[in-house]
């Protein structure tokens, strides 16, 4: 048991993010429900964001905001944070668009299942 808890304790945010990414991928591979696949794809995106934010993490670093007195020492890397704000916005808008498209499909074909949807498309 000690080794199991040691294993969990040495996991970093980055490891967990990669795990989350593949959980999302698994969901997208296995779920037949359209909403659930959209959620899975959203999880993949969030996992990638979490992984990116954790890169170049230095414990105890200052927020990357310039102040008059302090020199730029021990400042957190601002690049991942700045980039991920962009990526989060993109992710939200794409998921919103997927949901909007799903609504269209749902009103017309009245199903939330990929397989049934394909069958109804061919009729």
């Amino acid at each position, binding site marked *: 048991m000690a080794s199991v808890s040691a294993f969990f304790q040495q996991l970093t945010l*980055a490891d967990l993010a*990669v795990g989350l*990414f593949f959980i*999302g*991928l698994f969901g*997208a*591979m*296995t*779920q*037949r429900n*359209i909403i659930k*696949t*959209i959620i899975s*794809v959203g999880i*993949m*995106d969030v*996992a*990638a*964001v979490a*992984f*990116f934010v954790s*890169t*170049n993490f230095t414990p105890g670093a200052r927020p990357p905001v310039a102040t008059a007195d302090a020199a730029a020492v021990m400042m957190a890397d601002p*690049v*991942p944070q700045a*980039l991920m704000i*962009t*990526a989060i916005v*993109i992710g939200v*808008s*794409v998921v919103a*668009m*997927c949901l909007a*498209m*799903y609504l*269209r*499909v749902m009103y*017309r074909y009245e199903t939330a299942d*990929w*397989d049934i*949807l*394909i069958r109804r*498309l061919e009729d």
Partner: protein
Amino acid sequence: MGEWPLHLLVLGPLLLGAVTYFLPRRAYQWGMGVGNGVLTMAALHLFIQVRWGVPLRQQLADWPQGVAIPLVADTISAPLVLLTALFFTCTYLFAARAGYMDKTFIFLFLLLEAAIFGVLLSGDLFNIYVILELGMIGIAILIMYRQDKQSVYDGMVYIMMNFIGMAFMMLGIAYIYRITGVLDLTLIHERLAALDDPRAAMIPFALIMTAVAMKAALWPLFSWLPRAHGAPSAPAIVSAVLSGVQVKVGVYLLIRLSTVFLPVVNAQAFFLVVGFVTSTVGFMLAIAQKDIKLILAYHTISQVGLIVMGLNLGTPEAYWGGMYHIINHALFKGLLFLTAGVIIEAYGTRAYSEIRGVLRRMPVIGIAALAGVLGITGAPFFNGSISKYFISLGAAGNPAELGLYLINFGTMLSFVKYGTILFGRPPENVRPRADPFVSAIALLFGLAILAGGVLGGPTVALLYGPEYAVRGAFSPGKVAIFAATLGVAIASYRWGVSRWDAWLANIRVFKPNFNQITVLITLFFAGLLAYTAWMNA
């Protein structure tokens, strides 16, 4: 002449769309015409500057390298920028009088142009990611613009599978940033070469290349392409632009990012095999289709496979052949999609078996479509023959040479099938619509295809620089091989393919659903990762 800021070229189409949106109808058309002309001239100027000068490199807001977002125009991207600008201008003129061209549509169309310029000119990995997402959203809206039949479903599958691909790419970019600390492509290239353990670059390579292979529609990740390019409701110019230039963005990224990763990961053999399989599967699916737009869409997959094969054969002739084929394919597939749109409108059907006698009923469109068919099959004196000749020249002595014969035969077979719509007796109820713009642009494309073949060698030298003798492409041997392939293809179509309808129906229903698509993405990623691990072991 001074150096123009490159970001104006990326922002240009967006500004044009936004500003002209508020103009009244008449001024709007003039504004669009002038704006497109200015963009084309800017792209031409950029091409001349880069081709006979030095590659341009600009850092946005004058930040130092490594911090700024760089914009780069070099000898690979500048010809493609010129091609994109010309292509969008021509397709705009082609459809200027069509019913579906409202202002919102044109704005989205210009957004797509901006996204393509952005990817071609960007030198920053994250910037490329953002612009790809932008283009993805624009394309999804364009696909389902008319919201009829299954176009919303097509759009949804397109956006969701591409979103998965982009999630792979973002994870890969994060890995790259983790091991190199930069996002600038040239700096990544330098720092990867200095890595202590080159195996650290394997995972990001596999992640990013999975996304890129999906954008380039390589096997087995191409199932979005026929949905998008052959979507029943997508207007002709959208199909033409997607097949002509947008899919080349993926191929361009494949070239660009392979070079970035070259010091540590070399996957040329992998992409050579994948290119061959893509090409073969593409033409088999194309032959099985009944819808003329779907024949063309699946055939785009086949041609992309051929381009990727040429680029990864490892010989300079094949490489430049692949580069030239990118441009040639844009010309003939763009022309074929544009004419197919006109034909579908006049005949009121998309089934190839009901369309006959296009040459007799619509001579101009028919001749243009015939030029496209001759170009794509590599008929002597048409541009396809030159690029295919280069690729086969570079493949000499390689087992891939046999594969090229197979691909040529498959191309011929699918276009013998497509060509049947040109001949025969036309049905009575055909109403061709006379439009001088349509005829002029179609003939212009046709002439460009012919000129690209007759002046093949000088064109390659003009666009890219390397000079190769092309006389071999016109040699009696090549002409004889073309004629023999054509004969065999007609014979096997007449006595084979046209009678196997039940058997072809089995191939035609092969359409993976969303879960299967995700499994295929994962398998491709695992395969690429296993291959790079095996190469570096």
